[in-house]
């Protein structure tokens, strides 16, 4: 018995294919659209949710100074891909938790062109981050430097007295990163 395939399915194959191609093209367009919309969307989301918000001062609720203990604070400075010198003027201080303290960092742009950088803080040990309250810091904003400009910049902070007792030493380390878009 001979068997023949049906000449056509319920609709012509050509038009079905065209419809499929059309649908797939829409998917492709949507995918690319998603990709391009992502960048402004990303900025908006960061703004809306406060993610990566490094520009706001911490608020301090408890200003009781804990005179019973001393915490040693070490300061450290790094620059990444910026031809700057950057150092703390005081390498370390001993403070009572709760006491408002100010330290100075010094930055010099050693080049002949203006440059902008952003400092990002980091803490050792990590859990100290939650107890180290910065009231004022040069890391809250981008810092622009004229050629060969040298500037001293303060950090004003309080160590929260709630800091676990077994933390006796905290290192505050800043890294200055180059801000995208610097032109030579």
């Amino acid at each position: 018995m001979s068997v023949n395939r049906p000449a056509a399915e319920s609709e012509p194959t050509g038009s079905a294919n065209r419809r499929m191609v059309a649908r797939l093209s829409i998917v492709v367009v949507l995918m690319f659209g998603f990709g391009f919309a992502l960048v402004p969307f990303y900025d908006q989301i960061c703004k809306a949710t406060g993610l990566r918000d490094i520009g706001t001062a911490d608020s301090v609720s408890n200003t009781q100074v804990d005179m019973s203990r001393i915490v040693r604070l070490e300061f450290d400075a790094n620059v990444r891909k910026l031809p700057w010198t950057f150092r703390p003027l005081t390498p370390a201080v001993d403070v009572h938790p709760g006491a408002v303290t100010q330290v100075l960092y010094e930055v010099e742009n050693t080049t002949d062109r203006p440059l902008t950088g952003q400092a990002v803080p980091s803490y050792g040990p990590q859990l100290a981050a939650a107890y180290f309250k910065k009231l004022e810091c040069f890391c809250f904003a981008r810092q622009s430097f004229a050629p060969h400009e040298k500037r001293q910049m303060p950090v004003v902070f309080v160590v929260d007295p709630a800091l676990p007792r077994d933390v006796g030493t905290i290192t505050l380390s800043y890294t200055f990163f180059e801000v995208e878009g610097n032109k030579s």
Partner: protein
Amino acid sequence: MPSAEISLPVGTELGAEAEFSLTSRRHDAIGPRGRWGLFASLCALSLGFALMFAARGAWLVLPYSALEMGVLFWAFHRFERRIVDWERITVCGDRVIVESERSGVAARCVFNRQWLRVELEERGFGRPPVLALRYAGQSTTFGEALPAAERIRLGRELRRVLAGIRLPARGLGDG
């Protein structure tokens, strides 16, 4: 063996007074509660993870999670729609009646018994062949829910019935 007892994956039953009647319907092994319960648990888990990451800054997990839950919803929904579908073929006097409900759309075709042709259409690509019933300009298919071998068997059965060969009503599973 009465065909009503034949279990899988189709429920088949004989109509009452007709010469030949067969209802085909899919078997639903879990039921809507289980299905949507599982879907809800996956949604909670997947979106929960995504929200957790979003809170930590990695919010790009979220669109993928939503997209995937969408696809899963589509799959379950589509399956569910097919589960309530049913088809019945009844041979009654000189008429053959094919009734069906697919995606909520009810259909009914009535054919003349003498002029009806029962054909098996190949569809290719490894899909099981389709049982087609044709008469003049009219045509319909039958047996969406039946595995391939069942369709062939049913086709044979139908031809016998249409030719007037009287056999005791038989189920599909005991051929």
